[in-house]
């Protein structure tokens, strides 16, 4: 066992008992990033000097007895989080040299806890993608099979956890971008209820869907991270002003009598055999733990992808209008006038997937099409939300697959955007409904690729799904398997 193999709670124990210092743990991870990240490409920016300085400061806090659970823990953040003074690119050429003048609230909160920042992680450009292939900094590779995608858009975050290149990370999830890569890389990924965690300083993709969440080795670490980042933020008017429970206290319950819904629309005939088998095994495990299963229906599931790709792209077209070469980011060298400057800067700076989604969104919002596309999608969103409200009258949470197949090969779906979009079918509904959902390791395919299961909870029911996830983790060994990289 190396220091880079340890979880947050394991490292914390060693720091508290003075057996190991944060500096030693940080050096262990930085050395591993150096040798191993070239095979994975999880990092866009490694903040080596800063990490060492953070570790020294953390060790001082630990020596004084002023340390918390996260003090001295080496973390990395998806490159979508603004980190003052540290290059933040959102994996785009258009922000290639952007140095933020302020930090995301979630990073500030982690800094207050005394974490060590190792660097910024690779992702799909502007969080638009399910494979990390649209990054301007090259694809990230799945640590379990480097010819495969790690998932996306938080591909770097998931791969870093799986390859032990960071003790834990933060990602963002708009249509599944935490849960799907967590599933493909065998780590824990949680998307909180919309409004649970501040979006201030998180580069916006689709503002009514984006959420920040932890990606970790195990459920305990996930609860520790959620404790640190959750809560109201006056700088984010969409953040909710309700108390944050101690999520780690939720981990000592049992699931006896827990009612878990199985939505028939998610257990389709075309589901990959290994995924189906992992789900069947998971259901048996939960039954043995005393949970009860209820067949439910979420009738509008089939319309979720269409709804999402209208709402998210419309919101993105508005959010990305700010990248025009005036105040920050890439500006073209030669232009004939202001409009030409903006057009050329954007066209040179954005990748193909980003352009595609901006155009789809612009089309959906344009005169003549606004009602038929955007408003229609918002109405279907209401129906999708109602499906969940109705289901949660009968069950405490819902169990589904995360992805229809395990991780596919790099390059396999890149030329068929619609096929790529359709693979988000199981994760998108929770974003549309605004509720919380998480992915945990639940098995492996015949070829050794990870398969996750998804727990969808009631709004602000993160404690319940964490309890159920923890119980499953205690009863299985999936989370103990590590990628041989």
């Amino acid at each position: 066992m190396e220091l880079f193999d340890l979880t947050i709670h394991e490292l914390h124990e060693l720091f508290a008992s003075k057996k190991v210092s944060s500096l030693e743990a940080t050096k262990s991870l930085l050395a591993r990033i150096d040798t191993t990240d070239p095979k994975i490409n999880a990092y866009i920016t490694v903040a080596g000097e800063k990490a060492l300085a953070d570790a020294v400061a953390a060790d001082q806090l630990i020596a004084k007895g002023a340390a918390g659970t996260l003090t001295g823990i080496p973390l990395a953040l998806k490159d979508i989080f603004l980190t003052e003074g540290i290059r933040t690119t959102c994996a785009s050429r258009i922000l290639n040299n952007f140095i933020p003048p302020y930090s995301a609230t979630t990073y500030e909160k982690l800094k207050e806890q005394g974490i060590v920042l190792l660097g910024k992680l690779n992702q799909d450009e502007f969080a638009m993608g399910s494979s990390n292939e649209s990054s301007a900094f090259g694809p990230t590779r799945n640590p379990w099979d480097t010819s495969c995608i790690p998932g996306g858009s938080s591909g770097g975050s998931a791969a870093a956890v799986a390859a032990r290149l960071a003790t834990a990370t933060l990602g963002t999830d708009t249509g599944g971008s935490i849960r799907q890569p967590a599933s493909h890389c065998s780590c824990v990924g949680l998307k909180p209820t919309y409004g649970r965690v501040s979006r201030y300083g998180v580069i916006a993709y689709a503002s009514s869907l984006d959420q920040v969440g932890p990606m970790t080795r195990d459920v305990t670490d996930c609860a520790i991270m959620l404790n640190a980042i959750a809560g109201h933020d006056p700088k984010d008017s969409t953040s909710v002003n309700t108390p944050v429970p101690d999520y780690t206290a939720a981990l000592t319950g049992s699931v006896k009598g827990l009612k878990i819904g199985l939505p028939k629309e998610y257990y389709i005939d075309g589901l990959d055999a290994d995924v189906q088998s992992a789900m069947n095994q998971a259901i048996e495990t939960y039954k043995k733990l005393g949970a009860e299963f209820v067949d439910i229906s979420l009738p509008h599931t089939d319309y979720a992808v269409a709804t999402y790709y209208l709402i998210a792209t419309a919101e993105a077209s508005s959010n990305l209008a700010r990248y025009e070469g005036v105040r920050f980011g890439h500006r073209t060298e030669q232009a004939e006038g202001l409009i030409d400057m903006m057009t050329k800067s954007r066209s040179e700076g954005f990748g193909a997937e980003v352009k595609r989604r901006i155009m789809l969104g612009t089309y959906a919002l344009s005169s003549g099409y606004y009602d038929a596309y955007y408003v229609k999608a918002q109405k279907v969103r209401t129906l999708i939300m109602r499906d969940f409200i109705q289901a949660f009258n009968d069950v405490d949470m819902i169990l589904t697959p995360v992805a229809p197949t395990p991780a596919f090969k790099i390059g396999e779906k890149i030329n068929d955007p619609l096929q790529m979009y359709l693979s988000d079918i199981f994760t998108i509904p929770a974003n549309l409904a605004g509720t919380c959902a998480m992915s945990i390791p639940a098995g492996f395919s015949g070829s050794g690729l990870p398969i996750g299961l998804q727990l969808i909870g009631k709004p602000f029911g993160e404690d319940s799904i964490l309890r159920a996830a923890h119980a499953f983790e205690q009863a299985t060994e999936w989370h103990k398997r590590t990628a041989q990289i």
Partner: protein
Amino acid sequence: MKITVTDVEHVARLARLELSEQDKTLFAGQMDAILGYVEKLKEIDTDGILPTSHAVPMENSFRADLMCPSIGTDKALQNAPDRAETFFRVPKVIE
């Protein structure tokens, strides 16, 4: 209804994007497929259903009307591609 290169050019202009001829054709085909797929929303009767723009029930979130420090001119101009005194400098508007 098929998405044509003319449609792509129109939308690109609205979005301040310019595409190569090759990309225009490629995007027309891809957008056509995607928009064709989202047509399935027409199958659903949404009469009387209100659109959802916000997932969590919330009211307007106001703060007290008090002056607070802002980021300051220097920080705001830090990443300016071109700066003149306290201004962002841009090419002039050509009509």
